[in-house]
């Protein structure tokens, strides 16, 4: 059985716009999978439907045997602890310090009292610091999150997601708001840590080169449908280009 299985996922927004028209996807080992598509192709929606930040209209999402799409509120909270998400806009809490932001990754398991007093457990703090060291922001942990540069903030986001010790990483256009050079560093870091922790990673990108450069498998999305799903080396560049330009011309 695959770690993550998506069957017949559909999403139509209340405005009438249909973002996903039936997605079938299976994620097995600890691979990096690029979800490739232009804006509006539905890649963001797809990721958000997996952890139900966006509620799917139809379909099934199963993570490690748990039918996520059918869980009630409390079940969903428990399931989300195993899904780490990294956002395009970093989504850190500006007023809190870097370390507190990383520690917020374990809020899913922390008791309410700990959340109020911000008194996290010692081993959690220890683990958070190790993660900060790994992503290269150890010297910034006391700074407020809004004092960091974009690249640094995204690294905090990575550490926060890893703090959850997730079974899968959902990454939504992580480098779209970054300089290409900085973005490349961030992508490398993400792939390296995902590999170290043996966690599969679903990364949505709109850039072909990023997709081919970092992922083992590419899933192409176009207007809410998967148009191809294959290993990167099997994918012919000209095929990809033609799909892109087709959409461009349309």
């Amino acid at each position, binding site marked *: 059985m695959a770690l993550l299985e998506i069957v017949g996922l559909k999403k139509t927004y209340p405005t009438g716009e249909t973002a996903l028209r039936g997605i079938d996807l299976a994620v097995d080992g600890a691979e990096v999978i690029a979800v490739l598509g232009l804006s509006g192709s539905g890649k963001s929606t797809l990721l958000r439907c997996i952890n139900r930040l966006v509620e799917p209209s139809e379909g099934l999402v199963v993570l490690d045997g748990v039918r996520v799409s059918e869980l009630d509120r409390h079940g969903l909270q428990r399931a989300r602890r195993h899904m780490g998400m990294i956002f395009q806009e970093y989504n850190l809490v500006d007023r809190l310090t870097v*370390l507190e932001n990383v520690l917020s990754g374990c809020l899913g398991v922390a008791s309410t009292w700990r959340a109020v007093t911000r008194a996290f457990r010692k081993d959690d703090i220890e683990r958070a*610091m190790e993660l*900060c060291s*790994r*992503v*290269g922001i*150890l010297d910034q942990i006391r700074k407020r999150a809004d004092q960091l540069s974009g690249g640094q903030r995204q690294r905090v986001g990575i550490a926060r997601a890893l703090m959850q010790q997730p079974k899968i990483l959902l990454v939504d256009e992580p480098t779209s708001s970054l300089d290409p050079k900085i973005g490349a*560093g961030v992508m490398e*870091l993400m792939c390296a840590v995902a590999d170290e922790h043996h966690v599969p990673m679903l990364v949505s990108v709109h850039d072909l080169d990023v997709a081919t450069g970092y992922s083992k498998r590419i899933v192409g999305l176009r207007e809410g449908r998967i148009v191809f799903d294959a290993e990167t080396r099997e994918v012919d560049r000209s095929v990809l280009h033609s799909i892109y330009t087709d959409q461009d011309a349309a």
Partner: protein
Amino acid sequence: MVLGEYGITLDDARRDYRRFVNLRRLIKFIALLLFCIFAVWTVWYMNIPLERLSGMFGRIGTMVFNRMMPPDFDYALTENVFHSILETIEMSFLGTVYGVLLAVPVAWFGAWNVTPSRSICYPLGRAILVLSRAIPPIIWAMILVVILGFGPMAGTITLVLLTLSFAGKLMSEQVEAIDMGPVEAIRATGAGEIKIFVYAVLPQVKAAWIGIIIYNWDSTFRASTILGFVGAGGLGLYIRSTTQLLDYERTMGIILVVIVLVIASEILSHFARRRIR
């Protein structure tokens, strides 16, 4: 790409963090402790009977539901009381009108950037704004009742002062925030201070001022409902008289009328604000 080696080891970071967090915690703890001591001292110093708090909700409940219900609306509609409702509205209306009329020059004087005279007008304007704001409206009302006698005149003037303090201050702040460009331009033509105000300042602040005036009406109207308590006209008089006579159902009737009026006035200003946009 270098990651993780910025001259800090994990051990350093741990020690540093622990010290920092402990210091922060200590400071927070001391602050909280000092505050608790202060609170306890206050309770002792002012002889606050904390034990009366238990049962407070019970007593309020009894008072509100047994003695103040059912609200005596008929009383609220008797001739005298009805007149005082009209009087309340009249007072707030006049108070706002005259208050705004006076607030315009006072706001102008009290604005540092365009005040006609920094040595005379500015201190005068500022003094009026500060003084009218520093004295609570009810105290103003009581003083004016002594000087002018009972009745809505004292109340109206109190509301004028209230408008000056509230709208006047906000209006003055708006003036201080304008673009000085047009002011310089008009000044360069040799125009006098008043013309500068009318042609360069007023057009810039007109829109914001109207919003302020509407906002001010809300607070003026609310104040007008209570000024009668000290004899300055309006409904407040009946709140006092019914309370003193222990006619609590009547008091409740009047309080509810006040609430309805205030809500109605807020809805009106809400629509007025919408229309302005």
